[in-house]
């Protein structure tokens, strides 16, 4: 069972490259290759299908962020890497839920991924801070900021869509919102870093 899906290392490189470019097909391939493995791991260790889904998606995000740095060198099979990351993430989650398990039983070998998990945890925290800040920002500020910074719409489009008389007006409003968002975000940021 250990190496039922053996992918070529060039294939794996292409896959990671696709992943970094948000390619739908690559995500699908990764799903097809590894989802069942991760699900088995989680379910055999006290988890539900929902947990499996969460852990797997987190793992793919770790992989995605690694791939995006461009300097990611895989020293082992992708499968082993995915397995190790999900295993570590799941252990961490179990610990948080105080469901202590002496040893997660699995058959595959693992590689050390502590560093990745830590970086990922940090990123997760930052993501949540931004999400929280946006949530507290309220409407219409939130939509305005999202339209400009996330959906990258032009100021003229935004002015039309939100009913401002001209782009300059919208711009002014956007700055007011941005200042508030920054304040919220940095407050949160300091809170977390103390």
């Amino acid at each position, binding site marked *: 069972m250990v190496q039922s899906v053996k992918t070529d290392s060039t294939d794996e490189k292409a896959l990671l490259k696709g992943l970094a470019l*948000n390619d739908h097909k690559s995500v699908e391939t990764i799903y*097809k290759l590894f989802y069942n493995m991760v699900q088995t791991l989680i379910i055999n260790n006290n988890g539900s299908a929902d947990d499996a889904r969460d852990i797997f998606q987190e793992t793919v995000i770790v992989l995605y962020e690694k791939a995006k740095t461009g300097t990611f060198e895989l020293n082992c099979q992708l499968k082993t890497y995915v397995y190790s990351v999900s295993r570590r993430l799941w252990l961490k989650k179990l610990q948080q839920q105080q469901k202590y398990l002496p040893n997660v039983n699995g058959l595959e070998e693992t590689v050390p991924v502590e560093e990745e998990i830590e970086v990922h945890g940090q990123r997760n925290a930052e993501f949540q801070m931004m999400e929280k800040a946006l949530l507290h920002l309220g409407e219409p500020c939130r939509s305005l900021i999202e339209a400009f910074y996330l959906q990258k719409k032009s100021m003229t489009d935004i002015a039309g869509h939100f009913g401002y008389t001209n782009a300059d007006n919208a711009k002014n409003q956007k700055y007011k919102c941005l200042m508030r968002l920054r304040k919220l975000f940095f407050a949160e940021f300091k809170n977390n870093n103390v």
Partner: protein
Amino acid sequence: MQDVQLLDAIERFLRGEMTPEEMASFEQLRKSNPEVDEKVVEHTMFLQQMEAFSDRKNFKSILHDVHNQLLESGDIKEAAPKATVIQLWRKYKRVMAVAASIAGITTITIAGMTTYYSQKKTGQDFERLKREVKREVGQKVSEAINTVTVQAARNTKAPENTPVKFGGTGFLVDGKGIIVTNAHVVNGSTTVVVQNSKGQEFRSRIIYSNPETDLAFIKIEDADFRSIGPLPYGIGKRSTDLGESLFTLGYPREEIVYNEGYMSAKTGYNGDTLSFQIGVSANPGNSGGPVFNKNGEVIGIINARQKAAEGVVFALTAKNIFRSLEDLKKDSAFQNIRLTLNSSIRNMDRVQQIKKIEDGVFMVKVY
């Protein structure tokens, strides 16, 4: 105002939109004024955070789409946890058998007694929320339609000369056209027409109706209906906590109506555990309508209210849907109905959520 201009300059600087001269003077400013420099660093960091946030958000939605897509195509399967329960079962088989029989006898006795004592009460101050369309109104409407038909040949799918008798609400549980509503809404009729929030009507057939659980499934069988793909909302399996905020969509009138409230009790009328009590206002016509939690997951189906009290509305728990679906799946024709479990509208604000959900909520018209 200075700050505004400075931020604007920083953003243009970072996006490389400055002319060379502007760039040079900006660099100069940074060097000469440490305060400005600090602001540039700070804002750069902030914009990077935004960038990372938007990136991750996009990627998450891709993951979500792929997951649902592969689930639908059957490439991956969500396995049920097997684990320890089976082992425990083997170990304690005999003890459990004894315990179960004792529990069984007790339950039956108690259930018998409860039904005996409480049966007479039910129904007096308990009102089903289907909308009865009054004769005159119905006739007026059909007259109005008739006059229109002459002029504009309006394409109504209602059977001829039969006014609408009852109205209720229903919602898609499978994008391919399976709708859930209350059994008392469709009770005793064969023809059902459902109408979406844009006013399009579709002919449909009742494929399952169980007056005991008060649930019914309707299948849209109309050439004009197109599958809406993966549903934006999921059917929740979790139980809900007291005080959790929730919202409903339904058709107490000819228009879709939004309402919000909270979870007020974990059991329904007379301690019924298959339903729960919510604090929203509901009117005849809301029956069969979905109850969503703030994540946009369906947690219940409105089915009745208490007449004597104000704002006491009952909804069936979403678990009933799963149970009834098991029943329905015994018929091999409906094997491939799949419920969505996770909602993709989790972190949106309410207005956006409703825009997505709206397409899945239908008016059920019974003739």
